[in-house]
């Protein structure tokens, strides 16, 4: 979880990712950020996030992102 | 339920406003250009029921040349001129048909000025003027659905709702367009468009009567087959319908030709004369058969195209004479039901007096 937040802060400094729960709808992360984020997550956790996973529900908060990562790690 | 009523009221108001806009935006009878003249017959549907004995139908030559009040003045016979600019036979047919629903004219005089007009030469001015004046819904639907006109759905719609066609007139609306909503025809001349102005014909010596006499001598043996003038089929069809209609209504259809300066007037006369004979119709041509001819120096308002009031007076005399010689029509002058007619006549005569006619 901490690692996820660290990556997020690299991408978009100055946002409190512990509390934000609407990263996509509030347009805090745009599609470019998402792409950067996914590339980093893939590298960091050795997973493969596919376009099918790119839905707002998976990226709206740091927690949601972490859930996605753990799910993919298990597979 | 409440909503249904609301919607209903909303639509009723919408329709009312659209009807008002139709009147305002239609140029027919407005102050605009050539459209203005159609205003002459504005009160055709306001005439007392079964009060008209003679119906005159035709194009601009009729409403500028036949003044029913003139004839009423002479012999007390009531008439109305249901004529609009460039009126084609289709318009004439439906005018007559519609007229019979409210009136019972003994004589229907159909002018032949448009007898050689081809179907493809109909003008919008002509069609709009006649159709817009068919006030009551069903006459209008009748003519719109006539096969000969061959109107598309959108065109029909635009005839029913002239605002669709003329909405851009918002740039040219005058107070006249608003006034025509509330005002009845100012003074009813029974479809006659009064004009006093004179503009003489350039060829002052025009005398159809003399020319025709000369022609008759030269062509003892008439050979109209050789002429390239032909009455189009669509006109023939409608004439047949009219003959049938008039027979049903115990009325007589008469073809008339108004005085013209047309170079081919004689040839046209020959063709129509022959045609009338075939159909068993009376035909009277005010060009060739009357010795006291129109004076094209004083009797025309626009260099020989249309007659003015002086011309109309003369034509009125011919028609009066013709009607009393050929038909047994009642003199209504003394009848109390026709008080209104006498009032109209008085106003008409006063107008003439003002103009020193």
């Amino acid at each position: 979880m901490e690692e996820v937040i660290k990556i997020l802060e690299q991408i978009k400094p100055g946002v409190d990712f512990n509390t934000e729960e609407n990263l996509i709808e509030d347009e805090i992360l745009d599609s470019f950020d998402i792409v950067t984020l996914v590339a980093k997550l893939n590298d960091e956790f050795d997973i493969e996030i596919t376009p099918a996973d790119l839905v707002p529900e998976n990226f709206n908060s740091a927690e949601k992102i972490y859930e996605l990562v753990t799910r993919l790690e298990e597979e | 339920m409440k909503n249904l009523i609301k919607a209903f009221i909303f639509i009723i108001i919408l329709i009312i406003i659209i009807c008002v806009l139709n009147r305002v935006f239609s140029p027919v009878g407005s102050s605009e250009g050539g459209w203005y003249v159609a205003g002459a017959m504005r009160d055709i549907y306001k005439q007392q029921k079964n009060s008209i004995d003679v119906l005159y139908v035709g194009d601009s030559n009729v409403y500028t040349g036949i003044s029913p009040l003139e004839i009423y003045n002479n012999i007390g016979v009531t008439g109305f001129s249901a004529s609009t600019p460039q009126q084609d036979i289709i318009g004439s047919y439906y005018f007559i048909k519609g007229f019979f629903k409210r009136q019972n004219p003994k004589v229907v005089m159909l002018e032949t000025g448009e007898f050689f007009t081809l179907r493809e030469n109909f003008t919008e001015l002509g069609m709009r003027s006649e159709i817009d004046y068919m006030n009551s819904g069903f006459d209008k639907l009748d003519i719109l659905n006539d096969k000969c006109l061959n109107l598309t759905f959108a065109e029909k719609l635009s005839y029913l709702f002239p605002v669709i066609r003329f909405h851009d007139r918002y740039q040219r609306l005058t107070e006249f367009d608003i006034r025509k909503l509330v005002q009845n025809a100012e003074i009813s001349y029974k479809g006659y468009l009064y004009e006093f102005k004179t503009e003489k014909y350039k060829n002052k010596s025009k005398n159809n009567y003399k020319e025709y006499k000369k022609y008759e001598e030269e062509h003892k043996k008439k050979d109209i087959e050789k002429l390239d003038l032909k009455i189009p089929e669509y006109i023939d069809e409608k004439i047949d319908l009219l003959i049938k209609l008039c027979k049903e209504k115990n009325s007589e259809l008469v073809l008339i030709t108004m005085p013209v300066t047309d170079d081919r007037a004689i040839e046209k006369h020959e063709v129509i004369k022959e045609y009338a004979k075939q159909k068993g119709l009376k035909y009277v041509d005010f060009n060739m058969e009357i010795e006291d001819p129109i004076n094209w120096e004083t009797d025309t308002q626009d260099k020989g195209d249309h007659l003015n009031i002086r011309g109309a007076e003369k034509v009125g005399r011919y028609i009066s004479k013709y009607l009393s010689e050929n038909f047994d029509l009642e003199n209504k002058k003394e009848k109390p039901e026709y008080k209104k007619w006498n009032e109209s006549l008085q106003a008409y005569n006063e107008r003439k007096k003002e103009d020193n006619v």
Partner: protein
Amino acid sequence: MLINSIEFIIFLFVLVIIYKLMPKRFKWVVLLIASYIFFALNSGKYTVFIILSTLSIYITALKIDKIGNNASQKAKAIENKEEKKKLKNEAKKKKKIVLIIGIIVNISMLVILKYSGFLIGEFNHLFKINIPVFKFLLPLGISYYTLQAISYIVDVYRGKIKAEKNFGKVALFLVYFPQLVEGPIGRFDRLADQLYRPNEITYKTITYGSQLMLWGYFKKMVIADRVAMYVNYVFENYTEYTFLIIILAIVGYTLQIYAEFSGGIDIVRGASEIFGIELDKNFERPFFAKSIDEFWRRWNITLGAWLKEYIFYPISLSKVSLKITSISNKYFKKSNLSKVSAVALSLFCVWLGNGIWHGSGWKYIIYGMYYYVIMMLGKIFAPLGEKIIKILKIKTEVFSYKLWQILRTTGFVCIGMLIFRADNLKIAFSMFKSIFKVNHLERIFNGEAFLLGGIKVQDIIILIISSLIMLYISIKQEKGMKVRDTLAKQNILFRWIILYGVIFSIIIFGIYGEGYNVQSFIYGGF
């Protein structure tokens, strides 16, 4: 049948009655039949293409689902984790092949019908040969429904939705008539349920729907078609004009296309709303955007979203792209450039796709590339801009700065529109140059500059007033007002005055019918 025709209104009216009277089970069938009638009236024998498209995605989706189901059933029986994974990967591969076939079928129909003329022409030009070019008429909305078709099978592939087993229902998803004219591009997950369930047509759906339609007609007929008179004239005679007139024509065209496109969308969304079916929004006041990115999130939204989901993300996450990203990460470290290079390829594909989608021809490709370059430059120089703002102590939260951002964005968009509207690139470029030339200044001062192409003073007044109304409503919406809700709360008198006002503005001030050459008739004869 155009959506701004009386026939469309009658069609809709009859459809509402039939839909309302139909038993619940058949309501969606009514929509299907009506949509096919609508389609066939417009496209005639080309209707066969949408049927082919429907058939292809119907089969593709079922096949994909079947492969998936078979694999998971087999997987249940297997204990070994490794083997399970292998089985899954095999299934995935198979599914992918089926998907790609499905996509190719749909794309090739689009390419043959829409782009073959251009492609063959270029090919002939390149190799100095002469392959005959077929001129096809386009089936109605092919650019839209093809994208919908692809999104459907991709979504099934991704497991986002289940394949629909009823062929008629798949057909309705593609052919649903309001979205055929100019979008919005619907998605199965949001649209399908609404289409198939029996919707209740109520007083509210009728009034709300027709109000939205009215607003659309107003924008289209009063604003767009009017300003088009000026725009068309100047673009036709562009060599004669410079400076202000060219600027007016370009800005006018931007206004025209916005009013026309968003108006058209309002009409079809309104029509759909009557049936209780809400189509996706396609516009969200694009001219309040403060950047080009934002503009494209507000303009033709459903196209942008489609490109994002089905081109941008897949390409960004493709092996090639990821490789570029990890390499650039090493080189540029945390700098902005690593972020930019990560999307360089996928963004290129998006804008190429966007350009080509708009039409066949080089100018559309350039149109796409124009936005690509602007966006990339924007990304590259973003940190620089921030630095400048810091150094100069520019306040960014004030109105004037926001206005500057909006105007800057609009300026870029207008230039894009110039490329889009001009007959070819040469003309676009030459018009762009003549903006900076000034001659015949007197035309501006004697008003001649504004009265081109049959525009009269009255038209200018109407344009100004109606554009201000549009602006006013946009500002209110931007602040969160729901126009129709607000209107519904007003007293009946005020509400009706507004509605009659809109209706009669359209009837009287709309540009339609032959009225615009009445003058020539009137003196035709007496």
